[in-house]
């Protein structure tokens, strides 16, 4: 039971049930507002009956040439609404926008190497581990860069896994 709509500033005051989750980061205001100001179509919210916030996705589109891609910065679902495939719906939306509107080559995301449940979920959604990023999270934990090719990448070149891990300063984008 999901109405998916654009995220707006006032939602920042309503998403506590989602963000109190320990794996959901509450960013600073300029971070959220930069996303809203630059990529409003990549920041969507799912709302259920009674106007309850169920979850949201935030992302962006960036890169050049064949690296032009959608990026999922955060996707999160409130505890009460888990195990209902909501994250999948939100991911699909972002993939659609990247694919059909912005004509990107792939969508990527970063996940903690220890976050096994999330990795499993992304794999189910068609993402593959493209490369490992050493000590990506606060210089401590490794991150995994996972990717899913979109229709423009006909040969699926963007998702051929790299053989060696990279360091954060080798990353092309923040």
């Amino acid at each position, binding site marked *: 039971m999901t109405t998916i709509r654009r995220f707006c500033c006032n939602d920042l005051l309503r998403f506590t049930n989602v963000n*109190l989750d320990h794996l959901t980061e509450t960013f600073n205001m300029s971070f959220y507002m930069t996303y809203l100001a*630059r990529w409003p179509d990549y920041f969507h919210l799912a709302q259920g009956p009674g106007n309850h916030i169920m979850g949201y996705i935030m992302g962006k589109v960036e890169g050049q040439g064949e690296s032009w891609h959608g990026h999922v910065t955060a996707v999160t679902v409130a505890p009460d609404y888990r195990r209902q495939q909501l994250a999948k719906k939100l991911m699909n939306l972002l993939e659609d926008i990247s694919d059909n509107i912005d004509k990107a080559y792939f969508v990527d995301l970063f996940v903690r190497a220890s976050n096994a449940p999330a990795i499993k979920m992304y794999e189910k959604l068609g993402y593959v581990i493209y490369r490992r990023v050493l000590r990506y999270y606060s210089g401590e934990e490794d991150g995994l860069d996972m990717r899913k090719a979109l229709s423009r990448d006909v040969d699926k070149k963007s998702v051929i896994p790299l053989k060696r891990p990279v360091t954060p300063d080798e990353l092309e984008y923040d």
Partner: protein
Amino acid sequence: MASKFGFAGGIPERKVRPIWDAIDSRQFKNALKHVTTLLAKHPNSPYVLALKALVLERMGKIDDASAVSLTAKENLFSNDLLSMDDLTLSTLQIVFQRLDRLDLATECYEHACGKFPNKMELMMGLFNCYVREYSFVKQQQTAIKMYKLAGEEKYLLWSVCSIHLQVLCGNGGDKLLVLAEGLLKKHVASHSLHEPEALMVYISILEQQAKFGDALEILSGKLGSLLTINVDKLRMQGRLLALAGDYTAAADIFHKILESCPDDWEGFLHYLGCLLEDGSIWCDEAVNDPVHPPKFVSCKVSHLTDEQFDSRISIASAFIRKLQTDTVDNSVRGPYLATIEIERRRHLRGKGNDNNLMDGIVQYFCRFGHLGCFTSDVEMFFEVFTTDKKAELSEKLMKINDTLSTPPTKTLGLSISLFKIKQQLLLGDMFNSSANDVEVSCVQMFEMYCKNIPLSKDLDPQESMHGEELLSITSNILVQLFWRTKNVGYLVEAVMVLEFGLSIRRYVSQYKILLLHLYCHFGALSVAHEWYKSLDVKNILMESMLHHILPQMLVSPLWTELNSLLKDYLKFMDDHFRESADLTFLAYHHKNYSKIIEFVQFKDRLQRSSQYLVTRVETPILQLKQNADNIEDEEGILQSMKCGVDFLELSNEIGSKSLTFNEDLESRPWWTPTVEKNYLLGPFQGISYCPKEILTKERETSLKREIEKKSLLPRMIYLSIQSASLSIKEHVEVNGSVKPDITLELKLLLERFSQFLGFSLSEAIEVVKGSFSNGERSVVSDSNLIDWLNFTVFLNAWNLSSRELVHPDRNEGRPIIWNILDSLLERYILENVRSMEPQLCSPCSKVQLLMQLVTEPLAWHGLVIQSCLRSCLPSSKKKKKSGSAYQSSSNLAHAITESVQQLSLVLEGVIKQISESNRRPEDENSDGILSLLRKDEHNDGPGRVFHVLETFISSMSNAEVGDRIYHSLKSWSPADVARKMMTGKLKVLTAFSAICESKLKLLQSLKQQIAQV
């Protein structure tokens, strides 16, 4: 920043690069060295001066930075030959912004644009300046100039948005919208539109003028194709049609939306609303607070005839049935909940049938009852039932649950939903049940949790466990049992249940919030604070979550922790206010025009935040409390806050402000639905215990009064110190100069303050003289005691320098008000010390009051005493010359001596009582706590759940619950929890004792000073 080199002011890039590099790498000394060298060659260059100012500002040399930046500006203005390059201007802009002088930056750009009127780069900078200053009119004028110059759609939209801002956030009237519309129309005719956001702005300008038809026409024309997300376009069309009153066409649109997305609940509500020709949902959107939208859709009584109504309802039903059949995805709940909503509408029309509605809910339960969101999905439908019907429905759900055969995780989910329905929605039922029945169901829930732990043994520790909610419900009911019986053991049991749950999985925020409030209730505030910290509440979450801990901390002696809470929150808010405009400009720049208004409105909302305003007042008050034992330090603090003048302004303005409430009250426990309310402190009421009544208007009024009153304090403290010292000087220099303005201002503030007490000044004085009695009747209560005593302190200080009131008897005895104040302080402090209960499981409200008495009125009175003494005791240099001052004001001297003596004794009493509480060994105390839970099998009262808990821990096996959970539970000990509770409480008392001791030390040093005279 390093990329901004250029050839500014004729200085080559290679000369400037090292400066920027040093700034970027925060090597400011190095940067200053470079800049000084460069300045020697270009002493008048505004660019180099601006760089120097920037470096100085970053080094913290604000005054120097300010002076240099002003010189840069002067040079820029005085020398026409210098080029007005954007790099110089933008560097100056950065400096001025950091110095909080946006106006000066604007002046620079205005000057530059005056000199070079057609330079787009400079105009962009000027526009940006106006965005930062929220000067919507000037924004508009600049943007339109840019549009005329460049002819770009973007600048037209900047201008249109600036007009829209004048209407929505400024003083501009609706007429301005006609202008905006005209500008757009003309542009569209010649150039069309190219950005989807531009179209959205156009539509919203038309919508706001109620030109729905025009908007629809544009949307369905060529421009409509700009909106690439089809559902967004359809939603827009549907809304416009409904607003235009064309419900049939609107219903068709929402029909389409539902066909493509049958789970779109809002889409369904709009569809049904349009079918029934009920536009209230659109009106609600306009009037409701977007941060607290209603849970229920309010509906108008339909004007349709019965036949029309029936026919529309059957159309809706048929469509929904079709959606149900067509939908293959099992997780789609929308069409099933829709059936219930349709039934509810029938019911509201008076044509409903309770059984049908119940059946709908029962069927929904069979299908989705195992989901965590079941209860919140259906809660709105329970509203239509009477208490009896609610009970009947509960029975039906239980019966059907027994017949459902599902896998264990679903069975668990179904049971949880049933318990939640009983606890949250059928509250009357709970209250009618005997305490014993309630306890039995508590035990059942807890057992169910334990029994189902094995289901989660293979889950990742980061994942939510099955049945987690059972522990929250169990502890909620245990708290209710405490309310009913006042047996504190239930509260301890609730704590144990939650701590047990957190030892199994430490991430459950719901448990942490409940625990935080329970520990607060015990007075173990330091533990509550630890749990709050573990929630990792930061950034914008502080605005919605700080209310869980802040009010308790404000009346606690944990000043260091309180200070960091206040500081972090204010920093977050002030940072946002500072950077918000730059982010708004980013939205302009990226042509996301719809975000511009959103950002400006959001900043405005946060600036009017009730919590922000409270914090702004409480922060200086905390500083004043912390420094009250040293008058010089206190004066330093007062100087830094302009002697309280700014807060007076806040006090004057607050009445006309409309406050916003951004707290997430939903996350609060049932027993304290708002900050102001705590059911546990009152008697048990056999009514629905969580009405969640949020009377925003009432809260706003009382909060405004509170802020208005509190923001008088810094100034009144300042004036009291002045008045006290003035009184001595008066004694010494009989014909000397007096400063009547101090006395007069203090009197005016006393008049204002007395209004908050509900009296005129003269009446309030009489009340004080009667030791807080108005005739026979006492006027004070716990809730206004601090105000009355603060008032008396300030009254006394005023009385010292004023000749208006009955003047202290010049020949004998102590001044009357002073005398009364001392006895009142003594009376109320000792009274509260005596009622500090010996059991440590008692609520902390008495200690809070005691703490306030010592840190507010007593502290402020201490300042008055310090001020008097400082003025009349000879300083070491003038000892011989002016040694007579103390004697010359003999009755005042007498008052001071007596006061110091009396207050010392009072503080000693407080310290003694605290140390007696602290003396008991921890183990003895924690054993006492645990003994509340140990009971014989046949005894009533708390302990049953705890018994199950202990049995479970001792009997669980590794294989059953898995290694991780097994080891966590084996190392968990209830005795540790009891000890933590005790140490937490003691820590608060120890901190309070330290405050008292510091005050006592002050009084002792004053005694010594007096003795040396």
